[in-house]
């Protein structure tokens, strides 16, 4: 008996050691980033990372001398509008695929499915020409309009709508509710977990867009934060490592906070999507 507890104690210690090593690997880039964001750039470029001249000066510089706040605001507006419109258009499309009977429904659905196999990256050339011809370049709309809906979102919500018990729908039909009312009063509330998941996905996807905004926006007024950080790096401030790290921290801290508090929901939502 004693032998077993001793062995499991050893095992426990081993587990903590492995956990700590893995945690260090994940954390080091964050920690180095945050630490250097507190140091004066002169110390960083001399290579003295153990400097004790800690201050928030880099953050003050980032806030006052770069458009980082504007970039964040742009990203927020773009991601929020994309999210809301995807929630609406994906859910109405999914409703049509599940609850409406019409000719060519399956064919259309497979067309939706097929678009999920086509990478957006392979379509940027004609899409760029399209938005240029529509005079959308360098505006919020260029980063929202192509993503007003998504085949993926429609597919995900369709899977969720299919789980709605048939009795609910029958009851609604007997009540004589219109499709619009069934959609708003029965289907949406019933599938709210999937809607939250889609909301998180679409917001994050939009927030993390890189190639498309880089091609279509040329001014700080509309530039989202991913391309804003790229801009900061390529400007004359390139070697101002302290300020760049501070900007990165300003961008990443809100997402980490959201992730920390939303962790439980994320875990469930993701697995629901992954295993269905």
């Amino acid at each position: 008996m004693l032998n077993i507890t001793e062995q499991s104690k050893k095992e426990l210690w081993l587990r903590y050691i492995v956990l700590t090593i893995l945690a260090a690997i994940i954390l080091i880039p964050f920690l180095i980033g945050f630490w250097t964001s507190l140091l004066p750039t002169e110390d960083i470029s001399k290579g003295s990372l153990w400097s004790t001249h800690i201050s928030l000066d880099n953050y003050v510089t980032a806030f006052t001398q770069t458009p980082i706040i504007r970039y964040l605001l742009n990203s927020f507006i773009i991601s929020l509008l994309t999210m809301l419109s995807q929630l609406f258009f994906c859910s109405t499309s999914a409703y049509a695929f599940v609850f409406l009977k019409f000719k060519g429904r399956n064919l259309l659905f497979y067309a939706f499915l097929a678009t999920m196999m086509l990478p957006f990256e392979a379509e940027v050339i004609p899409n760029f020409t399209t938005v240029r011809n529509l005079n959308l370049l360098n505006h919020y709309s260029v980063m929202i309009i192509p993503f007003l809906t998504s085949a993926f979102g429609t597919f995900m919500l369709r899977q969720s709508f299919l789980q709605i018990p048939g009795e609910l729908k029958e009851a609604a039909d007997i009540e004589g509710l219109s499709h619009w009312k069934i959609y708003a009063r029965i289907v949406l509330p019933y599938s709210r977990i999937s809607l939250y998941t889609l909301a998180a996905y679409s917001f994050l996807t939009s927030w993390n867009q890189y190639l498309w905004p880089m091609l279509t926006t040329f001014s700080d007024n509309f530039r989202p934060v991913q391309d804003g950080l790229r801009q900061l790096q390529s400007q004359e401030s390139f070697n101002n490592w302290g300020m760049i790290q501070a900007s990165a921290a300003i961008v990443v801290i809100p997402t980490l906070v959201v992730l920390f508090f939303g962790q439980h929901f994320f875990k469930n939502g993701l697995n629901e999507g992954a295993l269905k």
Partner: protein
Amino acid sequence: MEEPLNRKLKPLSNKSVTLKTQSIEKSSYDVNAHDKFYAWFFLGPSLVILSIFVFYPMMRTLYLSFFLTNSLGHPSVFVGFSNYINLLTSSAYLDSLTATLIYVIAVSILTLVFGLLLAQTASKKIAGINIFRTIFSGTMGVSVSVAAIFWLFIFNPSIGLLDQVASFFHLPTINWLTQPSWAMTAVIISTVWMNLGFTFLIFFGAFQSVPKFFYEAAEIEGLSRSYQFFHITLPMISPTIFFISIITLIESFKSFGLIDLMTAGGPNNATNLLVYRIYQDAFLSGNYGSASTQSVILAIIIALFTLIQFKLLEKKVTY
């Protein structure tokens, strides 16, 4: 992840899709006269958007791939398959294809292995485990530009962390981003690090869903931990393993952001992956015909991998 979940979840679910479509057909309800009207009303906006920004550009890209184009991107001379032949016989393109394959395979394997390792070590409920779980999922909140800044500093010659550590131990320093194979290594490491948060969360969820009595039975039988891992955990979560492989593979084929920020395809085109090449050829050199051909090849590769993985999925997965 750079473009987190768009278009990712479908391969797994195709099977259930057909099943469910059938079941709906069976439990057929009254055909409402208004259904057709509502269908157009509910689907119309999505159809318009997808037609303009997904269906049309794919056709247009395919069309352009058979033409030479002028500087505005308009097709000028029909050249049949010569864009394809030129590309597939050009050593520069084949090098880019090889580099992409190396990158994709390395990233996928490392993401899988480390993701499983993180989930396995964090799966047992011990004191303080929630702190580790939170840390492990941390990179999920990191976007591509932030990751690039973190890693550019770590790989920076002379002032970066790695070379400082190396010189502290009197080891030779490496010019990470200016030597071809090291630059590729650096980009792979950064990508895997970025992928881990998401991969961990998915694997962790899958591990939790394996019924506990399997392990209890194995304990009674006196089976070792590693035996349990390879003969219980892995088979039980094989659908998730395939899911993660598919999306990591596809996402890596589409990698652009980290390449643009960290190496710009260099040094010496060592990290000039497929999407970065398309961007360069189309938007920096104005060579739209060739770039369209490359886009078609990329789309075919991604569609093909999705299908191959899906076939494997049907055969090997234990439910």
